[in-house]
């Protein structure tokens, strides 16, 4: 378990409405800081600039989908070690399993509960190694 609490989250998501809800959820319910990136091709740059504790990736996005962003992160040592949680409307357990196999720290299914979302993220955070 990391010694410090989860504070900064970067969220990569193309849907602006969901961006807004997640921002409200994490800021108002979870009392965290959140940075949202709408264009997934800019995600890595944003990570380097914002230096989040944890990255939330949407799966289905135009141009570059979540898994592609994730693979690209692994090639870049500066962001390769950032813990990643996928948030996806795909419900099949097989698909979720492949994300975990790729090294994701957790998955959250859409629709998610904005009330519970910060707690879910903190649970993943607390399960991380030091």
């Amino acid at each position, binding site marked *: 378990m990391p010694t410090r609490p989860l504070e900064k989250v970067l969220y990569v998501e193309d*849907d602006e*409405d*969901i961006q807004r*809800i997640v921002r*409200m*959820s994490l800021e*108002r*319910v979870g009392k965290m800081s959140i940075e949202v990136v709408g264009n997934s091709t800019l995600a890595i740059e944003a990570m380097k600039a914002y230096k989040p504790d944890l990255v939330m990736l949407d799966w*289905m996005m135009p141009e570059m989908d979540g898994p592609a962003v994730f693979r690209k992160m692994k090639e870049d040592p500066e962001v390769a070690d950032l813990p990643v949680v996928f948030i996806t*409307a*795909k*419900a*099949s*357990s*097989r698909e*979720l*399993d492949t994300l975990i196999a790729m090294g994701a720290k957790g998955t959250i299914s*859409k*629709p*998610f*509960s*904005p*009330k519970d979302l910060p707690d879910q993220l903190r649970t993943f955070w607390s399960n991380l190694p030091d």
Partner: protein
Amino acid sequence: MDLLNAPAQSLREAPNLALLDGAGQKADPRRILADRVEQLYDQLWIAIVGAFAIGGIATFELWEPRFGGLVLFWWGLVMLMTFASAGLLLSYRRSRSKLAEADQWMRWLGLSALAIGSVWGFAGAVFFPSHTGEQQVFLAFLIAGVVTSGIPVFAGSWPVYAVFAASVLAPFAYVLATFGNRLFTELAILVPVFYAVSVAIAYRLSNVFATGYRLRYAYSELTDDYRELNKRLGKQLLELEEAGRQVEASGRKLALFADRAPIAVLEIDVEGEIQQINPAAEVLFGYAATELIGQPIEVLVAADARAEFAAKWRAIVDTQIPMMAQLINNIRHDSLDIVCEWTVTPLVSPDGRILSVVAQGRDMSRQLEAERMKKEFTSTLSHELRTPLTSIIGSLELVNSGVLGDVTKDVLDLTVIAERNGQRLLDLINDLLDVEKIRAGKFDLAPAVLEIDDVLEEALVLNRAFATRYQVRLTTIGSLPATQIYADRKRLIQVLTNLLSNAAKFSPQGETVEVALEDRGAAVRVSVHDHGPGIPESFRAKMFTRFSQADSTTTRQQGGTGLGLAICKHLIEIMHGRINYQDRDGGGTTFWFEIPKYTPSNNNEKEA
């Protein structure tokens, strides 16, 4: 094929008649003997009548007052022999054992011949020395005549004739030889020669008769066999005609099937050349039959699928095994690509040759397109509906949770309703997706070793808020030592949520829903007891089928899609358990399911 084979097989059996092997058995020497005996008896009346008449004439001719007594005695002997022989003839005629006792009858006949012959011999021996020269000539003529005419009468059996002739000639020859007259002595020497010649003739005749009888039998057997053969041929001809009619009828039927079938039927020879096609094939490929017949089948296969097709064709021709449900990319006359499903059957002759290959196909393009669209629709349902629902439910939840600050009571009432119905819409979508996955057989499980009471506790926590809305309390009764099961946690909670929310929905306000865990040996049983109105009789049969709710009004009153229990049943069953319900004493219903306990041995293969 059977129709064609049946007559051919019976024809092959045809030469297997009793004609050759049966002939020898029927030429029975006993029957030939019996026939010869019968012939002898048939002619015996000639000897009897002859003896009667000649005896009378001879008595008259040889009458001498000096020997009156002796002549009359002889005549008496002739009569006796005549009547005895007539008696023998009569008893033979009446006999029923002509065949079985033929040799006995032959012996009796021999005795009769001996007796008659002896009477004549007696005449020769007794009257020749005592009578005048004229009468001696008469006697000599008589005896020669009797011996000669005996030949045809007794020709059926030369030994009988030999006995007869010997009994006539021997006493006469003896008398001639001892008479003292040189001429008579010389005549006596001639008698055995005459005897030998007569017996030889009788022997020849008797052989001719015997051969005649054998031939007669052979002939009758031939005609019997011929008749039998004729009968069988006639029967086979009828069978052949019938088979021919059947073949023709089934041929017509097949032609009708092929002509009117909505499925394309092609007959292709072993070289891959099209022999025949039906109207459906013409429509499917846009060719006239005349354009396709004689063409290689490859003209109907899309260029990029030809290598694969050639391999399949080889396999069919080599193994002679039919292929079913083969999807092949075909090409129409108008160059349009279509995907067809083919059933390909080689027609194999009894000697193992492929006569032709029959291919039956139908256009699957539309069906495959429909399946693709359905899959796409399912995926759209999953993603495109969930995304806006995420926003709707998420927004409302944030408002309703109060973290954004207070709203007026009226607004809150409405946003709560909106959130609840958004949730209901989401449940419906999830249920529909689950049903679709069940239907497509694509339900993925993520099983793990779980503590059942742990799972149950989580389900209770998740559903408590829902139950509270119906003013129903969820409680557990009894306790169970920690028991491990091997199941998909998320799916098990889905089942529990379904049962708990149903129980809450159908319980009267203020009631409790009790949940119990029970050890059932190899399995653990989870029971959910409610105090609801029970399940209507009419609804029981379709409890676990899709889209069933007790009545359509409950759908509106209680929400839900009617899919829940069908999904639960499927989920429990793919986790190797079972699910059912029973009425509770004093009202209410118990829904329960059982899941096998986890033991490392019986779950090894699932963990692997």
